[in-house]
């Protein structure tokens, strides 16, 4: 790999350095600055979404509590999900892409830097729109945020208050931002790779993101279409989802989940792309099964587009459709099992060490495995009839999206933070953060499997006495989980401010172009193009 990083003296193509202070961040087109903004925004929204759900868990600590009105409880749940998915996880993955893709593929920057800037700056107004109805309600304007859950199901969303309109607008803006980001990722990968870096020599992280970007382009317009139709049903007299007018509420579920299921893989594929890098680095071995992982990403991407109806097996679909969606959903476990096999084989007989990123990566494999196995149970039509809309589902998708998504993001942050900042973080704090997170995560969500099996429905502010003990345990776990994330924020902050100087190749076993640049990398990443043999 190449080590040449000297400046070539060509004119500054992005105009950086013209401004300082807030204007610099507003106008920057540098991929590293924009990556930093995405990641910072994501961390802030992670705490906003987390605070909402801690209030929910406080309400659920014991039966009979009424810390808040049920309507407010519903609003917190729906906005928590939208914030975590659209404003925390997706921006974190886009932050990774911005920071790392050019470094990894030998490009000087993203292909379309201005589009990149625009994509980011759409996010804060959208986040404001999502959360603003809470504050407007304090002044007697409207009745709070959307209370439909993040799925916007009609006809509830057709009848809902002003918060639904705010959320519809926010989703449109977030969607446009993600589409811009995706287009930029695709054209960067196709047009900006270093000479010699063929697609099949590209880092797996880039492959994971490439499939993610195509999924976003295929599905976000469908979500946008669905919520536009919802908006016209609410305000312009159409009846797309109103049975009385010849419409069909189930149509909304089809449209929503055509986006919603691939969205799960949109959140996970960048992380799956990152894992082989971390595992190979700390096992001091080459990645096992590169091609198998690439093909698995592609197969998972395609399958994710054709399995959406397993989210509403109980809505009254025809039996042939149920059978098709059951088997197609189960089929995803095959490429996913290939990924698990490759991850474990990469570690097999390696000279493993367990620095913080590796701890998170191994934790991810174990906990995400539980998400996969419980997903198989939910994919079974007959079993799903019992588990649907229960806490079993809540536990399952938090094993997927917290243990899979958020812990995956934490793996990436701990892996690349020294590269970004030029400083090492506190390993001691990192490891403490890992153990607190893993233990409290299981304390929070493992009891929810049993609550679901025992029949506790999701999205209710109160419950029968029989569910009291497991709910109390879950709430204690959630509080520890939530507050232990402050360690994460503190560790990042300390690392930005200073610490032991990081080497260009931060980790002994790390391979790849990104480790040949200084830590932090120069303002213009690759001014001399590396040539890959």
């Amino acid at each position, binding site marked *: *790999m*190449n080590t040449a990083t000297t400046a070539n003296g060509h004119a500054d193509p992005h105009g950086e350095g013209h401004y300082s202070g807030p204007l610099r961040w507003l106008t920057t087109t540098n991929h590293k600055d924009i990556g930093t903004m995405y990641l910072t925004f994501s961390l802030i929204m992670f705490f906003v979404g987390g605070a909402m759900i801690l209030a929910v868990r406080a309400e659920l600590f014991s039966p009979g509590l009424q810390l808040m009105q049920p309507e407010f409880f519903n609003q917190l749940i729906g906005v928590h999900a939208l914030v975590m998915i659209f404003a925390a996880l997706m921006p974190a993955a886009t932050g990774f892409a911005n920071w790392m893709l050019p470094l990894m593929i030998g490009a000087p920057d993203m292909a379309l830097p201005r589009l990149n800037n625009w994509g980011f700056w759409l996010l804060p107004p959208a986040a404001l729109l999502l959360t603003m109805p809470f504050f407007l309600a304090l002044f007697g304007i409207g009745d709070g945020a959307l209370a439909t859950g993040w799925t916007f199901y009609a006809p509830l969303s057709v009848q809902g208050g002003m918060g639904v309109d705010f959320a519809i607008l926010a989703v449109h803006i977030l969607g446009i931002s993600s589409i811009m980001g995706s287009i930029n990722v695709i054209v960067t990968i196709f*047009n900006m790779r270093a000479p010699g870096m063929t697609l099949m020599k590209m880092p797996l992280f880039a492959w994971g993101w490439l499939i993610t970007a195509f999924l976003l382009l295929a599905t976000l317009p469908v979500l946008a279409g669905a919520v536009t139709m919802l908006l016209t049903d609410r305000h312009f007299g159409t009846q797309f989802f109103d049975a009385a007018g010849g419409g069909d509420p189930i149509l909304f579920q*089809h449209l929503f989940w055509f986006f919603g299921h691939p969205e799960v893989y949109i959140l996970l594929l960048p992380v799956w792309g990152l894992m082989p890098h971390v595992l190979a680095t700390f096992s001091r071995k080459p990645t096992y099964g590169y091609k198998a992982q690439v093909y698995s990403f592609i197969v998972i991407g395609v399958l994710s587009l054709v399995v959406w109806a397993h989210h509403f097996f109980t809505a009254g679909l025809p039996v042939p459709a149920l059978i098709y969606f059951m088997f197609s959903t189960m089929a995803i476990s095959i490429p996913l099992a290939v990924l698990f096999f490759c991850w474990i084989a990469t570690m097999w007989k390696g000279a493993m060490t367990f620095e913080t990123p590796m701890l998170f990566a191994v934790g991810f494999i174990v906990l995400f495995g539980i998400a996969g196995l419980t997903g198989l149970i939910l994919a079974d039509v007959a079993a799903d009839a019992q588990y649907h809309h229960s806490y079993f589902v809540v536990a399952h998708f938090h094993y997927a999206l917290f243990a899979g998504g958020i812990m995956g993001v934490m793996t990436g942050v701990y892996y690349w933070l020294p590269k970004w900042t030029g400083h090492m973080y506190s390993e001691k704090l990192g490891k403490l953060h890992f153990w607190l997170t893993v233990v409290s995560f299981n304390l929070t969500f493992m009891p929810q499997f049993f609550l679901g099996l025992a029949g506790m429905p999701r999205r209710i502010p109160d419950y029968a006495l029989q569910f009291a003990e497991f709910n109390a345990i879950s709430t204690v776990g959630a509080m520890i989980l939530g507050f232990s994330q402050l360690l994460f924020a503190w560790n990042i902050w300390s690392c930005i401010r200073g610490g032991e100087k990081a080497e260009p190749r931060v980790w002994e076993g790390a391979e790849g172009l990104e480790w040949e640049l200084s830590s932090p990398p120069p303002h213009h990443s690759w001014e*001399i*193009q*590396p040539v890959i043999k």
Partner: protein
Amino acid sequence: MTDQPTDFTPADLARRRSAARRLAWLLGLAVVVIYVLGLFIKR
């Protein structure tokens, strides 16, 4: 593992960015087509 690194010349960058812009417009058009078609879906 590299072979005679060369500068990213302004001409090379301009060529790559121009190709990227063309592909970006094409992808953007595809997104708009999916969105518009979606509005005509009947179950």
